[in-house]
Structure formats: C-alpha cells, structure tokens
C-alpha cells in the first residue's frame, strides 16, 4: 500500500499564514461562499461543457468516443505580471539557445569539438537524426512552435522541468479551458484583467503559411490518427486554423513534391504541421515499419518543395539527458547566464550521479529520456520498498536510459472536484511561437496540469487534469476588454474531402450493403427451410442458392457448400474466421467507420456499434443443436436487416452531406448492383432451360420464385408484372427496370447522380467515371433479352446469354477500378501530372 507523503513543497494559493494569497483572494472567496452543492453543480457544468465541446484526452483506446472528458478545474492558476515577465524572458532565452544548439549539432558540431558536451550524449541520442544533417529547415530554423514544462521549487522559484521544444502538445487544452471557464463562471473574469489567448491558432497559422513562397499555400496538419490520445487536439487545431487534418496515407510523393489526395484530385502541399514523431515520419528514412508516415517526405524537404514544422531532428533537444547541460548550452551560444533555472536533473548514465540517486531513490522521480512514462515517484506518494527495488534493478540494467528529478518540485494547489476542495500538485506547460524575425513569442497562458482524485500524476497521459491559466495584465497596460464573442469559433472554410475519408466511406457502404444482402438471404432460407418447403421444392431451390451465396472457406465445416444445412448457414452468419460471413463483413465495415470516426455522426456511430456489439455477443458454437443454430441465424440476420437500413437512414439525417457521405452511398449502390448482376448471371442456365426445355411450369416457378425471394424482389416482381415468373421479365426486372430498387441500371443511375451532385463536376476524373457508368447503362438497356433467351448454345461454348451477362458483369465490376482511379487513388489525374509539360 502506498502512503501519501508530505513533501515540503510550495503552496501556490495560500501564504505561510494559511490565508489565500492576495491574487487568489477574490476568486477564492467567491467559491468559498458558495454552498457545496452549487460548487458541485458548477463542476459538473464544466465537465459537461468540455464534453459538449468535444474535448477529450483518450488514454484508454477502448473508448472510441472519449468517455473521459477533459478535466478542468474551477479554480484557475494565476500568474502575476511580476512572475510572468521573467518567466517569459527565460523561456525565450532558452529557445534561442537551443535553436543555436540544433543548428550547430546538425552542422559544424562546434559544441562537441570544443568539449562542452560529451559527444556520446548528442550523437548517441536516439533522436539525433543523421538524415537531418544538411537538410533545409523552414525559414532556416528548427524550432517554430515549442512547449516547455515549468514547476515550482519549494522556495517558490520557477524552474524548467522538461523541454517539449520539438512537440508542443496541449495548446488546444489551454484554449478550451479558457472557453469552458468563461462559459461556466463568466463573472469571475470581471475580478481581474487577463491576457486573451484566443488568437493562438491564428498566430500558428500565420507562422505556418509564412514557410511557403506561394501566395495561397496549402497547409496541412499531419496526425497519427484517431488512436493518438491527443487526436482531439489535432482536430481542434485543424478546425480552428481551417487546414485539413491528414494522415500519412492521405499524402503521396510525386516528382519530388508532396500531394494531398482529395476526391477532386491531387493538391500540392506546401507546409506540413507535423504531430507525428520523426521516427515515424518517413519509412524510407526512419523506421521501416511505419505506416503513419509519408514515404519520400524527407526527400521532398531536401528538394525544398515542402516545409515541415518543426524541422526534422528537433526532437534531440527534448532529450532529458541534456537538461543538466542547459546552463552550459545557454552560456556557450548566447554568452549569457540563464534567466530561468533548470530543475536539478541527474542523468543516470553518469556514474557519480547514479550512485547518489540510487542511495536515496525515494526522493526522486525516475523518468526515461523521452515521453511521459514515470518509473518511480511523481504521484505524491512515498514509493514502497518493492517499487524501489524493482526500479533499481531496471535502472542498473541500462542506466543511460533514465534521469532523476527531485520529488518535491511540484507546487501544491487547491482544486475542486465533485464539489470538494482537494489538495493537488501541479506543473505548467508554456508554449512559444517563433516570429519571422527569429525571436520567440510566449503565449500569455499555459496548460496547468494538476493531479486529480483519480490520478496522482499531473501528466495528461497519466490521467492528470488541468486548470485554466491566467496571466494578469500589468498595471502599465490597459485591461483588455473581455469579449466573449472572440472566444467563439470562426467560420471554417470548407475544403475537399480527402481520398482516404472518401475511400473509407465507399467501403463502409459496400460492406454494409453486402452484409445486408447476405443477412437477407440467410434469413429467407431459414424461413423457407423451417416453415414452407417440401422436399421436392427443396431440391429445386438448393442449386440456385448454392450458386449465389458465398462459399465457406474454412475447414471447420464438412463441405464448402453447406448452405443447405443449418450449420452452414450459421457459419455464414457468425463465423468470424470465414471471410465472407455476415459478421466478418460487419467487422470490415466497422473498421472503415472507425477510421473516419471524426466525420461520422454520433447517432450513426451508435447504430453501427450497437449492431456489432449484438453480433459479437453471440457465443459462436456451430455444434449446438440444429434447431438452435437455425433460430439464432434467423434472428440475427433479421436484426442486421433492420439495423443496416437504420444506419443509412440515421446517417443521412445526421451527417454532413459532403463527398464523404456521397461515397458511402455510391459504395452501397455499386455493391447492390454487383450482387444483383452476379446472382442473375449465375442462374443463366436454369433460365435457358426453363424457357426452352419442357420443364414443368411449376418447377420453373419454384426455382425462379426462390431466386427472387433471395434477392428480396419477388413482391416487386409481382407488383411490376402481375404474372407468373418468366425468365424474360426476370431479366428485365433485375437488369434494366428503372424503378426496381435492385435493378442494375437503376443502381447505376443512382451512382451517376451522386457523382454529378458532387462539387467536382468539371474534373476530368468525374467525366471519366460518368462516361464509364453511362456507357454501361446504355449497354444494359440495349440488351435484347428475348433474342438472347431464344438463341441456343452451340456445342460446348457458352450460350450467348451467358456471354452477354458475363460481359456486363465484368464491366460492372470494372467500375470499381474506375471509381477508385478517378477519386480515391488518382490514377487518372496522375497520368496528366506525369506529362513532361507539367514537370518543372
């Protein structure tokens, strides 16, 4: 059991006499006077506001919608002008020094040849990127947007705890905290004049745009994707800056330039704001197994066709083993004494420091050289002997991978959680932006991180919460008028849907339609088998079914064509090992939906995940009694029949009707057309037999009726033709009928209409796709079914009807490639790009 340990730390809000410090007095009294229930109420309101604004920090990947809202405290952190000015100067000085440092070590390496730093510490660092040596940097600088963690020593002095120079993470939370707090306790803001931070995203955008010579450069924000815990930050910044949020797969490299794949073509990317760590950025140069990066990106930087912020290689400046050398680095490059002290940091690769730390391990927080992982301490508790022993072993195995910092470096503060006052520990992350002249501007705010009821750590990755951070306006300045309107989001310019998003939607549509059709077939067969069929009828039905349904591939079943047994149908519904089963298809649809989670409406997602959960809950057991297998298959297939249309309906009502959603419908229609065409092609010979041979009319009727039922089209047939099922009418209904929902021609008309309705009417890709679809529609309409049915086949060759159907089917399946090439992977446009005339 861990016991809390009272470190002798600085008290942020109370003075030595126990009374609140002057700067907090007014705020504190206001909160103090409130009844507990009201405080709790405010706290809940704050949490709800965060949730409503979509602010999450997902440290648990199993909750796709971020069940954990961001925790922001009711009591803000306040920095007085007297505290802030030296802090700001210290941060700027440090950034200037480390910018010099990066230029030096990726160039002449003077600091190493002069013996100021051990060579091994720099060149041996995991994040020293050899490929960054000699690489052009944006605006000839490495650092453009940087973060830095600050803490309070027991005597109240502020000191630097970590460098986040290469990777400023948390800016959105800083902004969101302010927005939420102004909504929940607007009156508190009247007590004191504070600096606004609402212009931060605009400042970042201006900086990014300045790194291109284009008059209207394309800036993108590169994210590792929805699995990154800070994804909500990435999408917030992308939205607020009005730049596309992209993943590695959205970009490609062509003729030494980076392009963004959108449904309306390739757009050249000028500036990339990267939130992906260097080592994943380009599999050609860094980790070979990276799928988050863009192959060839580094080469494009080298050829100066694109700028990446911050510059590749910057990450080495965040190595914690360099922290103890900060003073030397500042002195070496600037000839100045550091304005801001560094928290005492011991690098355990050094023998004497290691011995000293190991002798008194409980006093220290043990961290790695990078990242937020803490091996010991840091949670405000006295570590147990077992923990200490385990960490000692781990350190001794490879001491150079660890640093130690004193445990008593985080100030104490008060936070309100569930209406209760609690003591928390805190530190702060400050952010700074490089201005065109080369100086750094520190944003007048911070992300103050606090320990919470749930986590003793301050770090967000480890479950910590936060406080809004106010920087008071000095007496010499006029208090800025508080304008809550400036806190609201500006209108976001629309931009083209990326091909990745469109492709995911396209497949989502296809898979859902496939699962829907298959579920329909299985449930129809179950009904017929259970209730309606006599043995003769079965004999006539089964060959037709077997042709249409996917084969079972697994070895678990006795035959690949076991569609006539309840077990086979059960497998077709629930066997996740069968690639063609309903459940596998739903899983694939789900994977696609997940990859575009941020664009999917909550309601639509709810329907999808509900369906998947219901299917996953089935305990797969194909050896159960046949009766149970049959009823389970039927029940769940009916459920899929109900939920999938509900998904489409809900999505249509709740989603942006943009190109992304268009492609879901295109996928759905194309899949339906393909299933119909495939089914109708596969029964060609029975059709021919029934039209020519003297097969009993009853038997013909049974076969064709079974077939139409599988496609859910028997009632439609009756309604359209009001007669016995005839081969000719059946062909017409399924291929050419303009109103039948399954007819291939009407599905294709639908696709064409969706493509026309998109914004990309003028693109050559659209023209190509449309003309392919229209020409197929014309071919289908021109089919002379009567004549084809009447022509006998000669010898062993295929019948004309068979040949004709197969050729239509092939063209139809070819449309998939046309659509992919035109909108999703740009084969069409790239042919144009490759023309020598477009070369530079």
């Amino acid at each position, binding site marked *: 059991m861990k016991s809390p340990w009272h470190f002798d730390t600085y008290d942020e809000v109370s003075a030595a006499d126990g009374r609140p410090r002057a700067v907090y007095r007014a705020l504190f009294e206001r909160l103090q006077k409130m009844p507990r229930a009201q405080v709790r109420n405010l706290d809940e309101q704050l949490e709800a506001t965060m949730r409503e604004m979509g602010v999450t920090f997902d440290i648990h990947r199993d909750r796709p919608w971020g069940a954990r809202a961001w925790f922001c405290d009711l009591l803000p952190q306040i920095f007085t002008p007297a505290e802030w000015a030296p802090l700001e100067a210290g941060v700027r000085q440090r950034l200037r020094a480390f910018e010099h440092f990066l230029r030096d070590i990726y160039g002449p390496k003077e600091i190493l*040849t002069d013996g100021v730093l051990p*060579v091994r510490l720099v*060149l041996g660092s995991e994040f020293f990127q050899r490929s960054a040596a000699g690489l052009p940097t944006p605006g000839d600088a490495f650092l453009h947007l940087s973060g830095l963690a600050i803490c309070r020593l027991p005597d109240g002095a502020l000191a630097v705890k970590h460098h986040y120079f290469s990777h400023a993470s948390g800016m959105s939370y800083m902004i969101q905290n302010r927005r939420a707090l102004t909504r929940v306790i607007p009156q508190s803001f009247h007590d004191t004049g504070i600096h606004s931070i609402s212009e931060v995203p605009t400042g970042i955008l201006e900086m990014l745009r300045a790194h291109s010579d284009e008059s209207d450069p394309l800036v993108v924000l590169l994210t590792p994707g929805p699995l990154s815990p800070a994804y909500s930050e990435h999408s917030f910044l992308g939205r607020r800056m009005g730049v596309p949020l992209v993943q590695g797969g959205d970009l*490609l*490299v062509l003729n030494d330039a980076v392009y963004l794949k959108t449904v309306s073509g390739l757009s050249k990317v000028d500036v990339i704001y990267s939130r992906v760590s260097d080592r994943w950025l380009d599999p050609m140069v860094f980790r070979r197994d990276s799928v988050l990066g863009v192959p*060839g990106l580094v080469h494009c930087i080298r050829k100066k066709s694109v700028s990446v912020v911050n510059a590749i290689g910057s990450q080495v400046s965040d190595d914690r083993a360099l922290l103890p050398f900060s003073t030397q680095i500042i002195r070496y490059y600037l000839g100045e004494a550091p304005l801001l002290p560094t928290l005492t940091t011991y690098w355990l690769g050094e023998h004497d420091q290691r011995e000293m730390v190991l002798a008194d391990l409980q006093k220290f927080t043990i961290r790695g050289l990078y990242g937020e992982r803490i091996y010991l301490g840091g949670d405000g508790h006295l570590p147990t002997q077992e923990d200490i022993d385990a960490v000692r072993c781990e350190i001794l195995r490879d001491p150079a991978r660890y640093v130690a910092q004193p445990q008593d470096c985080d100030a104490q503060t008060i936070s309100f959680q569930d209406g209760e006052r609690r003591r928390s520990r805190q530190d702060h992350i400050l952010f700074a932006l490089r201005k065109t002249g080369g100086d750094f501007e520190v944003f007048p705010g911070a992300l103050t991180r606090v320990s919470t009821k749930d986590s003793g750590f301050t770090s967000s990755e480890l479950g910590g919460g936060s406080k809004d951070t106010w920087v008071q306006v000095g007496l010499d300045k006029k208090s800025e008028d508080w304008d809550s309107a400036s806190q609201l989001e500006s209108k976001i310019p629309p931009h083209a849907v990326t091909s990745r998003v469109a492709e995911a939607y396209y497949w989502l549509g296809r898979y859902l339609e496939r699962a829907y059709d298959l579920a329909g077939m299985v449930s129809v067969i179950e009904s017929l088998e259970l209730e309606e069929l006599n043995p003769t009828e079965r004999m006539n039905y089964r060959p037709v079914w077997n042709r249409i349904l996917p084969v079972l591939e697994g070895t678990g079943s006795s035959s690949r064509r076991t569609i006539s047994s309840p077990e086979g149908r059960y497998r077709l519904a629930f066997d996740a090992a069968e690639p063609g089963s309903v459940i596998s298809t739903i899983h694939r649809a789900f994977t696609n939906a997940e990859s575009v989670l941020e664009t999917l409406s909550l309601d639509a997602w709810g329907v999808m995940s509900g369906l998947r959960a219901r299917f996953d809950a089935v305990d797969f057991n194909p050896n159960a009694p046949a009766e149970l297998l049959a009823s389970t298959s039927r029940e769940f297939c009916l459920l899929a029949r109900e939920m999938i249309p509900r998904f489409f309906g809900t999505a249509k009502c709740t989603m942006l009707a943009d190109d992304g959603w268009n492609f879901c419908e295109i996928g759905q229609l194309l899949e339906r057309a393909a299933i119909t065409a495939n089914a109708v092609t596969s029964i060609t010979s029975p059709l021919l037999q029934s039209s020519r041979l003297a097969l009993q009319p009853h038997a013909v009727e049974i076969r064709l009726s079974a077939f139409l039922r599988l496609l859910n089209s028997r009632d439609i047939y009756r309604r359209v033709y009001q007669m016995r099922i005839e081969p000719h009418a059946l062909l017409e209904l399924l291929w050419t009928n303009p109103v039948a929902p399954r007819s291939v021609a009407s599905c294709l008309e639908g696709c064409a209409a969706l493509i026309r309705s998109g914004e990309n009417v003028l693109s050559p890709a659209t023209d190509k796709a449309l003309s392919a679809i229209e020409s197929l529609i014309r071919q289908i309409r021109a089919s002379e079914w009567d004549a084809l049915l009447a022509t006998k086949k000669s010898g062993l060759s295929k019948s004309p009807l068979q040949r004709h159907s197969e050729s239509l089917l092939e063209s139809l399946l070819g449309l998939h490639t046309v659509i992919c090439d035109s909108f999703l992977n740009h084969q069409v446009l790239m042919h144009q790009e490759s023309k020598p005339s477009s070369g530079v």
Partner: protein
Amino acid sequence: MLFQVVHTTHYLYVDAAMEAYLEVRLTPPSRAEHQIIRHRIDFQPGARVSDYVDYFGNRTTFYSMTLRHHQLKVTNRLTIRTHPRTLPEEGLALTVAEARQILRTGGTAVFDYLQPTGSTPIGGDALVWAREILRESRPLRDGLEELNTRIHREFKYRSGSTEIETPLAHIWKAREGVCQDFAHVMLSVLRAARLPCRYVCGYIESEPAFPADSSRKRLVGSLATHAWVEVLVPGLLWVALDPTNNQWCGEQHVTIAVGRDFLDATPVRGTFKGSASQKMKVHVSMRRIPKKS
C-alpha cells in the same frame, strides 16, 4: 582492370502496387582506386528521379511511382576501371593501442563508426575475439589480417542460410552466413576493440577472366551484391578487408555504398503500397573487358 557490371533488382508483386518508392545507392563514390567510365541507372516503369548525397557520403537516387504497376525493375549499368590499392603501411605498422589512441582524437567524424548498431552488437563473442585477436601491443596489420582469416576459417559461407533480419548472435552461434553476416561479424569485433570501421556494399568479380587460368579460385559473392569491411587507420585512411574471401580488397572489388552497417548501405530499398507482398529477384553480372592487344 576494366569491368562491365549489370545489376538488376526486380520486384514482382502479388497484386498490382498503387504506389512504390525506392531509394537506391548504386553510384560508386569518387575514389582513387577506381575510375567510372560510364554509369546509368534505369527504372522501369520510368519516372522522374532525383539524387542527393546521404550522411555517409553515398550518392542516393530517389524514385517514386504513383501509377498502378505490376512489377518494378532497377538496372544499374556500370563500366569502371579499377586500380591496385596501396595499403598505408605506416598506419598499419602501429600497435592496436596506438592506433586507438590516435583515432580517438578524430572526434565527431569517427564517433559513428565506433558505435554498436542493431546489426553489430559488441558484447559476447565479439568482445572475446576483440581481446584475443586485437591485443593492444599487436601491430594493427597483424591483428586485422588474423581477424580476417579467423572469420573466413571459422564461419562457413552458406548462401541462403540467413535473412536480413537474422540477429548477429545467431550467426555467432551457427558459425555460418553470407557475406553480409561475415562483414557484420567483423564490424562487431572491430567495434568491440574500439577501432572505427564501416560496412561496404559493392560488386566483386567472380568468374575468372581467363578460364585457362585454373589456378585462380572463383571468388564468393557473385550473382548478388557483395559486402565487406573498411577499417579506419591512423592518417584517417580507410583500408578494406574481405572476410568472405580472406583477402585485402583489390582490383576485383568495386565499392558502391558505405555506412555503419547493412541498413545504411542498402543498395535498393523500397516501400510499396497496394500490394500485400512482393518477390524480389536480384542479379549481378560483372564481366572483365580484356585489354586490347
């Protein structure tokens, strides 16, 4: 000697690839030991390519293909004249300890070549061999030659016995491998002995130029690219040893790329999108052009 080299790397995909990116290090560096007469790299399907010089000094060519394609072929055609290499006797006459001492002052330029890498760890057997063979008091030349011979003698050359990912510890244990493994073994011992060294990828003449000369042994390493090792000796000069063939490198060796280990000097490296897997076939032919009489 005058050589004509044709080196093809052929990728065949299972499904068509939508995007392919290659970085090839196939251009011999400018060196006194050889003179490039003609050199051309062909890519199929064709696309615009561009060059740069990487951190280790290799001229690197970048190629991107963003159209659907079923196969990809890189052909390196090289006509090159090689000259006999002279060894820096002075530097090699120093003892291992002296050499180490002098090279230590090389600072940042030498640092990279002293560090173990994922493919060249310096513990275990490497350290044992380093202590035994590269003793401090021993002349550097003796030590290097014995190391070369020991690897040649104690490790068996067996083509196909290892993969690129086979860890070096496994090679040490099995005592067999291909030229790349021989080179990595040698680098690990040299680095354990704190002598700076690097990996070399290149071509070697394998067919005897004059079939009548039956006394000449066929050299191992043909039909694919070859690998050997360079050691930095005082005077900041690199000397090249080929442990696979137990010899100092000479006129039959053509250097194309160098680095800390295989990964830095990979002749052809690719990233593909769209195809689940691909087969790679490599063929090298190196033919001596007889002198005109």
